[in-house]
């Protein structure tokens, strides 16, 4: 009898395996159902940021592309020296070619990857909010279980993030960055002391806004308050992200075939 009971228990367990993802999904109160996602007229839960979001530079009311706001705060001499070394492809110092670290496939890093006109998917669990980025095939985690930042953080590209809801705004607090990435496309630098605050809000079903604040006294003598960035929800067939790893061979080939000829230089 005991053997038979065990068999039934195993069969029941095995039968449940294919349904596991659905079961997990059903147990996540903050996850949108596919039906809700496709129903554009349905009201959105303001505490539900899940879905695939993309930054489009030309939607109405959009903040400036590629940088937190039009002008950076005054720089310290340390930051000014780094800024002067940067040769970006965008912004007031834009030029062809250049020494943008992402051309060598360095990770784009936070917050710069948030300005890319390529989508990221937000996935919420009770303890963490995940962001999966098309760019770099990168991801980050934002702890929402009430923990604090660990002490003696090892600096990283994405930093250490903790988040909490302030009314209908999801506030992300991140420290622990390395200083290898550019803060934006313009070549503005940041240091390991950067403290980043991101405020996400679901404005309506298809729109999420972001305001970010950069505090980095080693680089800037004042707080950098970004303008409001707007992200659109991708639905149906548009809810697609490709596998976009940065491949050095592809970057080099593209540089030789397009970037250098475009500026009148011979391939290397």
């Amino acid at each position, binding site marked *: 009898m005991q053997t038979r009971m065990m068999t039934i228990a195993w069969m029941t367990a095995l039968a449940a395996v294919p349904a596991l993802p659905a079961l997990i999904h059903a147990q996540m109160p903050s996850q949108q159902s596919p039906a809700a996602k496709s129903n554009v007229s349905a009201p959105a839960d303001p505490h539900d940021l899940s879905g695939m979001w*993309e930054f*489009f*530079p*030309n*939607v109405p009311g959009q903040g400036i*592309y*590629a940088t937190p706001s039009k002008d950076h705060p005054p720089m310290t001499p340390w930051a000014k020296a780094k800024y002067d070394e940067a040769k970006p*492809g*965008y912004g007031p110092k*834009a*030029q*062809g070619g250049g020494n943008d670290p992402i051309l060598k496939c360095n990770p784009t890093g936070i917050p710069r990857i948030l300005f890319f*006109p*390529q*989508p990221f998917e937000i996935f919420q669990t009770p303890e963490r909010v995940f962001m999966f980025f*098309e760019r770099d095939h990168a991801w980050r985690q934002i702890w929402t279980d009430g923990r604090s930042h660990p002490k003696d953080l090892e600096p990283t590209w994405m930093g250490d993030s903790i988040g909490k809801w302030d009314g209908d705004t999801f506030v992300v607090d991140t420290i622990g960055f390395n200083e290898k990435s550019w803060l934006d496309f313009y070549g503005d630098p940041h240091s390991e002391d950067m403290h980043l605050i991101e405020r996400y809000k679901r404005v309506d079903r298809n729109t999420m806004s972001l305001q970010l604040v950069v505090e980095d006294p080693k680089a800037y003598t004042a707080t950098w308050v970004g303008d409001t960035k707007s992200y*659109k929800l*991708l639905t149906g067939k*548009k809810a*697609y*992200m*490709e596998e*976009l*790893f*940065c*491949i050095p061979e*592809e*970057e080099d*080939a*593209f540089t030789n*075939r*397009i*970037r250098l*000829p*475009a*500026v*009148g230089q011979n391939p290397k």
Partner: protein
Amino acid sequence: MKKYRLNILIAAAALLQLGVPLWAHHGNASYDNENPATIKGTVTEFAWSNPHVQIYLDVKDNKGSVVRWSVETFSPGKLVRAGWTKDSVKVGDLVSITLIPAKSGAPVGFLHKLVLPNGEELGLQELEN
């Protein structure tokens, strides 16, 4: 290099209709946002790869000489969301491409719109308005 420009049909009317062009924000300093142009030629290669998809085509200039153009556009993922596939363009296709040309005068450009031999148009618009 300037002679290549002579072969270009300036698409001023198209620019006026578009308002703020998509590429004005995404394109980089190498390209002349203010002077979009349209070229027509035969595709020699369609490189569906990152960081940006590339189309190479042979275009006859007004003296009958063939000029090889190199045209880039968005990443494959963005193009899929705009309705393209990896098979949208084939070698040998006679296509018309509206682009912003390189400031250097080299036959290089950033694609805004492509018209296939059957008249189908492929653009960069990911969002439905």
